[in-house]
């Protein structure tokens, strides 16, 4: 009977089930299982046992990191699934590793915050894991449909997480603003994508790459422009940044850390994929766009950051301006041999920025436990009663400012190197704008240092800051990473060394 059924099926369908490389999909599968597990545990455990959800989430993330490692170490090279629509290569593995580890650090930042703040816990972990799954998928997507699905998958949970302080008006504002602008950006991008499909009759990026080239008709240029602008919202590039400060300020601090690092990195990953695989021959359209975006983003972000009195708002503008620095190399990525250098610069910067910025938020969360305040002046005299935290924060601020030998400088250095390598006037001009911005940025990073070291304690309260162990681990890891990446940058530059672009993107 079964034999008859099988033969009937075989005869009826010329459709062949694709061979699935389960090793390549292992990180995604582990994350998906983790989501289900946390959801079920949350349903069937009593209130007293909810503490276990955080550890389960972090074990899921560490578990997902294992296949990322084994894939990276395997000799099989680039794995291409589903007709090249889903690719696991060095680039995607590097970014998957970044997302998973950043997620782990955010878990460390969140656990005590959630418990003490009377938040929903289980749902938070489920949403965070879902968003991370979206990011991990984004790193491998090479097709308009999978890119869009990943993007929504990573964004929609984040909209809800931003509004997690349910009874706080600002948090609600944060969520709604993020949602509305995010949806608007998605719509723009979808419009661009539909044009691309119309041009090339394919959703596969490599196919699109062959059509979007040569003589740039207006429709092609518009399609490219819309897609780029859609992602510019995601990475909060000026002038599409207006949601970021309000969302960052209103959202719970660990969520802000998550948005400013993981979510932003995911936006960059998508942008890189689309530009390098989809539009490699349309550089005359996107190069000027990135030039203007980068110059505007770092300058406006910096100037606005100078004026902030709230630490999280300051960090929001700082992260906008850092985004400008990360964008910089893309402005010359189409010039001759600079594509590899630009890709390496962006990836390196993202890794370094993730370590440092998560560390900054860890300090912010730790200090806020004592001061219960978000103003920059509440950091006054931190050095006198919490010298360890003050020194660590100084390291992070200096790293963000790009002072050697800390991680941030190697990111900035890579960006400058890529720009200068192009040897064009535009490249040099942007490098000089970047150099000037580096100096302006020290205005607010230095101001933080000044508060901590040179100003008196505002309310005279010098009781030491109590740091829970999870936060301590997060602080230790991020500090270690920031120092190590600065002193031995070879470690991380190796990951970013994707000189062979065709190989890097499995094209």
């Amino acid at each position: 009977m079964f034999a008859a059924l099988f033969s009937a099926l075989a005869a009826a369908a010329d459709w062949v089930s694709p061979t699935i490389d389960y090793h390549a999909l292992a990180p995604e599968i582990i994350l998906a299982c983790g989501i289900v597990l946390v959801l079920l545990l949350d349903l069937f455990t009593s209130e007293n046992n909810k503490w276990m959800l955080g550890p389960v989430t972090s074990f899921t993330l560490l578990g997902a990191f294992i296949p990322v490692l084994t894939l990276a170490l395997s000799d099989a090279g680039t794995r291409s699934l589903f007709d090249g629509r889903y690719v696991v290569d060095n680039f995607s593995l590097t970014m998957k590793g970044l997302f998973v580890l950043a997620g782990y650090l955010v878990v460390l930042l969140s656990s005590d915050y959630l418990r003490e703040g009377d938040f929903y816990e289980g749902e938070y972990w489920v949403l965070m894991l879902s968003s991370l799954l979206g990011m991990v998928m984004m790193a491998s997507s090479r097709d308009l449909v999978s890119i869009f699905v990943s993007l929504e998958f990573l964004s929609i949970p984040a909209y809800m997480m931003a509004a997690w302080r349910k009874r706080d008006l600002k948090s609600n504002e944060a969520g709604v603003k993020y949602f509305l602008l995010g949806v608007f950006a998605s719509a723009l991008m979808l419009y661009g994508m539909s044009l691309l499909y119309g041009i090339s009759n394919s959703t596969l990026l490599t196919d699109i790459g062959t059509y979007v080239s040569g003589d740039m008709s207006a429709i092609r240029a518009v399609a490219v422009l819309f897609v780029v602008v859609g992602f510019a919202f995601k990475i909060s590039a000026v002038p599409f940044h207006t949601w970021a400060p309000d969302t960052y300020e209103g959202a719970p601090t660990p969520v802000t850390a998550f948005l400013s690092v993981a979510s932003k990195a995911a936006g960059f990953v998508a942008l890189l994929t689309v530009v390098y695989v989809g539009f490699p021959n349309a550089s005359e359209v996107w190069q000027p766009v990135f030039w203007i975006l980068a110059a505007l983003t770092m300058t406006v972000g910096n100037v606005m950051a100078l004026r902030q009195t709230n630490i999280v708002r300051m960090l929001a503008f700082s992260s906008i301006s850092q985004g400008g620095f990360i964008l910089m190399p893309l402005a010359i990525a189409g010039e001759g041999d600079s594509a590899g250098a630009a890709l390496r610069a962006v990836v390196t910067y993202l890794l370094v920025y993730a370590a440092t910025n998560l560390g900054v938020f860890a300090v912010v969360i730790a200090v806020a436990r004592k001061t219960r305040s978000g103003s920059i002046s509440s950091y006054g005299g931190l050095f006198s009663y919490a010298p360890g935290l003050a020194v660590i924060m100084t390291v992070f601020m200096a790293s963000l400012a790009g002072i050697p030998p800390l991680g941030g400088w190697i990111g900035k250095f890579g960006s400058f190197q890529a720009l200068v390598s192009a040897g064009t006037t535009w490249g040099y001009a942007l490098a000089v704008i970047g150099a000037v911005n580096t100096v302006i940025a020290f205005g607010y990073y230095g101001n933080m240092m000044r508060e901590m070291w040179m100003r008196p304690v505002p309310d005279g309260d010098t009781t030491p800051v109590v740091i829970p162990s999870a936060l301590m681990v997060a602080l230790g890891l991020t500090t270690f990473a920031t120092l190590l990446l600065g002193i031995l940058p070879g470690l991380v530059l190796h990951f970013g060394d994707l000189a062979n672009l065709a190989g890097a993107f499995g094209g």
Partner: protein
Amino acid sequence: MEVLSDNNWALSVGTFLPLLGVLVMLFIPKAQETATKAVALITAVATLGVGIFTLTQFNFDQAGKMQFVAQTNWISVLKSTYFVGIDGISLPLYLLSMVITVLVMIYSWNHVPEPGNTKAFFALMLILQTGMAGTFIARDLILFFVFFELVLLPMYFMIGVWGGEHRQYASLKFFLYTMFGSALMLVAFLALFFKTGAESFSIPFLIEQGAGISRSAQIWIFGGMFVGFAVKVPMFPFHTWLPDAHTQAPTQGSVILAAVLLKLGTYGFVRIAIPILPVAAKEWAPWIGLLAVIGIIYGALGCLAQTDMKRLIAFSSVAHMGFVMLGISTLTSFGMNAAVFGMVAHGLITGMLFFIAGSVKERYHTLEISRLSGMLKQMPRMGWIMGFCVMASLGLPGLAGFWGEFPAILSAYQPAAGLSEVTFRIFMVIAAIGTVLAAGYLLWLFQRTAFGEPNAEFSGDSHDDHGSGIHDVNVFEWMAWAPLLAAILVLGVYPNLLFKIIDPAVQGVLSAFGG
């Protein structure tokens, strides 16, 4: 390059040993101040010991060659290596940084400025030491840049936390100026890297390849470096951070700043900008010379207008570094020798003057020149030490200052081939006028503060008794100052001690000009 010595660990140990000390200090409780200070001082002395070992093993017959060379992979992706070495130009400055750190620590033993926190203060000095020593031995541009920047943050905190009334303003100004310079310098380094084929950041390699860069590109790249180094020197018109930083910094900060940090800029010109970009150096030389003499005159006039002793010394630094830059701008071996000697001499003398200013401030609680007088009566030893340093600073023959200043002026008479003799002779005359002004403001300073009767408010007679705490040079001050005073005298009487090791190295630098 042949390895002249197998002791190539010495430079790395001498540079990074202070960081080990900082690590140890982290584990000492904050309350145990004596233990903290002892660990810091022992580290600094041990570092100096390694420095002296380097000195004894240094092959003086080959002072023009890089010695103790060590090269190993560092950031291979960026084509940057960990590459260190030392020659006749680096050696005196490298040792100077170590000596100054030890002396400053001895001085700080019972002079930790407000608001205390001994541990952090000493730790910062050790980090500074690593940055300073590293800059003088780096043979790779990226390594050089890292060390060059490493001194920024410790000095920022030193001024900002332990400084005077306007310390926050001064520290930020210091930082922003320097950072602006180094950002452009980094872009210039990168341009240099790509223009020479993107192969290496190694300085010897770039010296070989640099001459091949087109003239206009050289001029632009030199411009970027010029801003970076000129801010650090500081040259007119980038000098405005200096008087504020010096005036507000604690004594220790001022001494380190004057004695070593300013030399990072001039050293950069001698070691990097000029040998790598000889064509641009020739184009820029008259402009550097012009800014140098403007600095000399401007600094001197600035001094004459000051009412604060420390600010006056700070402005005199602008003038003295002008002489150093004038020597460099001639692009002659005579001028370069003078410049390197001038760097060391200025380090010793101005460092000493800042020490004195600090001690005077501690005793009188003011540095206002009009309120100070009769120092020779009240504390004769301090007065005479000050007299000695003032004489050295104004370039009295027989003391170290003379050998930096006089040859620098003289070298402008005959600049390198291709530079306008007339221009440089005009510079020479202006610089010579500068020395007269220097004598003027320094002697005037000495006369007003040291001669005459002690001011009534400090004499101990008045009912409002400020004078009781005024005592002569104490034992820590003697220990910190005696080596400097001896060095000023010895180098003044026998300058060849230094010239004979500088000269071969200078010849090497100038070989890019075919001479």
